[in-house]
């Protein structure tokens, strides 16, 4: 059994914990509960016939009060960059975290996840902005931890990329 470490990075309130809760426990709560420190979950999956133990690190959200320590990424094979579609600034935070992560784990795979697709009518992050990143070769997915839309895909596509790299 292969074991791979995945980290979730992003600003506060973008839905990192909710994505993990949906993916690992098939649960969702509307109540926002901020994460302090790191929380580790595990899920076993089969990707293209390969059994993988995903060790998923839910890392606290970054803001002016808490900067993410990149040492948490050590040993990670991949990371999900999470932004909240309704808040443009969270994409900037995700991009800044990506720059920092590249310095720590340059060979790690990553996927950009724009969460809260259930609030699509309130999104500030437009397709034009995302198209620029897609043209750079980024994997970009729109998810909803609330409805579960594309959450499995987000983790599966990252896991697939990690296995293939």
């Amino acid at each position, binding site marked *: 059994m292969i074991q791979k*470490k995945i980290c979730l990075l992003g600003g*506060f*309130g973008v839905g990192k914990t909710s994505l993990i809760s949906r993916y690992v426990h098939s649960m969702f709560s509307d109540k*926002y*509960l*901020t*994460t*302090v*420190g*790191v*929380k*580790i979950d*595990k899920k076993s999956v089969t990707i293209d016939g390969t059994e993988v*133990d995903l*060790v998923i690190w*839910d890392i606290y*959200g970054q*803001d*002016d*009060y*808490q900067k993410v320590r990149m*040492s*948490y990424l*050590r*040993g990670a094979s991949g990371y999900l960059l999470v932004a909240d579609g*309704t*808040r443009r*600034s969270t994409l900037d935070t995700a991009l800044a975290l990506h720059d920092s992560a590249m310095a720590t784990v340059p060979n790690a795979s990553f996927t950009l996840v724009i969460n809260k697709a259930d609030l699509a009518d*309130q999104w500030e992050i437009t397709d034009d902005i995302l198209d620029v990143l897609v043209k750079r070769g980024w994997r970009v997915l729109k998810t909803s931890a609330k409805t579960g839309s594309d959450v499995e895909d987000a983790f599966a596509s990252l896991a697939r990329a990690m296995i293939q790299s």
Partner: protein
Amino acid sequence: MSASQLETLLFMLDVAAFIRTEDGSFSAISKPPAWFERLTSDPTFPFLGHILEEANAFWQRGLQGSADFGPCAEVDDNGQEYHYIVTAVSARSAQYLVFQIDRGADRMRSVLQKIRSEALTAAQDGVAYQSVVADMRKTNQEVKELLGQLLLAGLNPTQLEMVNQLATRCVNLMAGATELVRATSIPKV
């Protein structure tokens, strides 16, 4: 202090302490507290890998002292989240790994929760306000067009004055709405 006194003390302090043996394994100094037992319910210890990596890096530096890792969050049997800190200690020639509850993390969380919840609410309110203002702008434009039609219909001086006053009120209304959105926006956290 005797070994049994130390063991009692560590247990009462809710601390799980281990000494690193020569073969790299760990031997418990005292009976670990209940909260620590939950961590080890998964025999693969998914939380431990990275912590050990960090601890080993510290020990290999050969310095006397300690290095903290965490806080790490876990959920107890009641669904309540708690936080703990792991400390790698190097004292004389011995190396220890100590796990203890981080009560400061709960206080920090409570403060951050308040600040971030307010910021999220403000962001949601901002979106809602902007939507209302957009509707108001549309209505304002429609009123202006109606006033324009009135002007073209030919008005006496009193009616003309009333139309001008209505137009001014529309401008003021929109300025007020825009200011309301600006004033209720909380700076980004």
